[in-house]
């Protein structure tokens, strides 16, 4: 069992109270598994990614545990986490492309990073990995501004996986790319796993059609909790949670035109995470809601490897 997250709760402190961005999240990712993570904007996907790496100043670990390869990660303790970052778990953050330091050449960034982790520069290995993602070693002499978005994205992926972490979290790494580059980057992710450079992966994305191409399982979040986790094919073809169903049917298939068929979004908005209501958080928007939904449904296994948090999905 590679990653096991149990009852994880991480809140942001604000002047108006705690934002309960992760409120009891339980799942596991097996060795070799690529898990896609999707869900409405603001549902807590990036918060989950950050929680496994570094809590920023306002984030508070309120409860739950994270275990990686049998060892509990000290996620609330920034200094203690240092031993695990990059070596065991690594994150490619959302907007990583624009976050590269513009005044440093790529090569220098890489050697600084390795030095800070007490690892020596292994030029041959570095070049091999650049080649794997379709970059020449010349990029090491260039500044981030001189590379296209897709090239920068692949540089960040190489850097984050140099120390062969057990778990890689990639947050929206393809959203800013054009469709052909997206495909290349997505395939690179799978290649990293197939070659054993990383054991397992969490790929955060809005693009279910894309992640479905490379993921083994897909997990859907809603308002700080998990709604559903299932094998990728099952989630796309036979989703059980009402939110997942509505999400999948709101995807524009190629060729559909507004004049011919106006696709429907999901009416309403997710609840505020400052003071979320008790019970199922999808209740106000759910066409199937009934009295029992005032009680929080468990994230129950309804078929092998298929978990759903909905009273109607049993």
């Amino acid at each position, binding site marked *: 069992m590679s990653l096991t997250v149990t009852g994880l709760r991480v809140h942001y402190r604000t002047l108006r109270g705690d934002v309960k961005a992760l409120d009891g999240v339980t799942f596991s990712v097996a060795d070799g598994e690529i898990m896609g993570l999707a869900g409405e*904007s603001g549902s807590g996907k*990036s918060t989950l990614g950050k929680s496994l790496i570094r809590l920023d100043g306002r984030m508070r670990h309120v409860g739950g545990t994270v275990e990686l390869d049998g060892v509990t990660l000290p996620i609330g303790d920034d200094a203690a986490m240092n031993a695990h970052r990059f070596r065991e778990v690594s994150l490619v953050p959302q907007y990583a492309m*624009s976050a590269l330091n513009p005044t440093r050449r790529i090569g220098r960034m890489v050697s600084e990073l390795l030095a800070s982790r007490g690892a020596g520069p292994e030029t041959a290995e570095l070049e091999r990995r650049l080649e794997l993602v379709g*970059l020449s070693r010349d990029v090491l002499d260039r500044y981030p501004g001189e590379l296209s978005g897709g090239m920068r994205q692949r540089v960040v992926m190489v850097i984050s996986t140099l120390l062969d972490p057990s778990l890689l979290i990639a947050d929206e790494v393809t959203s*800013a790319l054009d*469709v052909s*580059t997206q495909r290349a980057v997505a395939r690179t992710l799978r290649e990293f796993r197939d070659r054993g450079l990383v054991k397992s992966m969490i790929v955060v994305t809005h693009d279910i*059609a894309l992640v479905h191409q490379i993921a083994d399982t897909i997990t859907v979040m809603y308002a700080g909790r998990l709604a559903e986790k299932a094998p990728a094919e099952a989630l796309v073809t036979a989703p059980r949670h009402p939110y997942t169903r509505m999400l999948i049917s709101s995807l524009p298939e190629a060729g559909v035109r507004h004049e011919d068929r106006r696709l429907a*979004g999901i009416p309403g*908005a997710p609840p505020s995470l400052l003071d979320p209501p008790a019970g199922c958080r999808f209740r106000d928007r759910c066409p199937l809601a009934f009295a029992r939904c005032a009680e929080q449904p468990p994230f129950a296994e309804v078929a092998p490897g298929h978990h759903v948090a909905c009273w109607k999905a049993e």
Partner: protein
Amino acid sequence: MLRLDDVSKVYRAGAFGGRELRAVSGVSFDVNAGEVVSLIGESGSGKSTLGRMILRLTPVSSGAITFDGTDIRALRSPKAYYRQVQGVFQDPFSCYNPVFKADRVFAMIKDEYFPRVAAAEWRERVEGALRGVRLDPGQVLGRYPHQLSGGQLQRMLIARAVLLDIRLLVADEIISMLDASTRIDVLNLLADLRAGGLGILFVTHDLSLGTYVSDRTVVLRHGSVVETGPTDLVFANPLHPYTRSLLAAVPRLHARWDEEEADPGETPCPYHGSPEGARTRPGLAEAEPGHFAACSGCAEGAGAPRKLAKEKA
């Protein structure tokens, strides 16, 4: 309303501006009131450069951009222009100052354009615009940019553009950061705004999103138009191999990439394979009414770039 006439852009690149980079060459198209034109192409094809020129954020190197017949270089009042033309860009974080609350973007347009509107009424308008992009005003007002997610920030920028009651919106990759259900809401919102007379230049790399809302499509490759026409024609009958490769790369829910790698095979060059009489625009041949395509880089068009999207590293 908006007209681009043979517009080119050359950037000076390299250490001393010694190298020249031709980002856009000889592009012409119009955007009319109540019309959505989608501008499609992979990254580096010059889409944002065109958008930035229209918004006067970077000068045109040659050719002309006119708005209601006036060259935008010669505008007497840029403020009056921005009252009618606004842009929303892909990276929402870059539009916010981290030391101020995110809703300052609304206060700024009030000070600039609506100083006389009463505070209570302004608040109502802001909340209405936020609900229009499916945001809960109570959840986003009064928060700092780092306290909001990327999708929330992006939608606030769209709400701001809507508040201005503009005539032309340049939307540069505004939906790639949004989740599927919000995407549809924003696309439907654009369609509703179009029905109200707004002209929209919708920049995207995803043909299926472009198809959903747009009336006309312009496909850009290496800074030049390779295909353009009514969206339904371009989509149903893509003529240029580049357009076809873009269409093939769109991920689909019910088809795996591994299964659909089939080579499209040889097709006649849409330009050189057309009768002379159809070559009615510079470098473009009209295959069916209003549907134009450029040379595919065939032998007769020797010297034309031959690289297709797939070969790009």
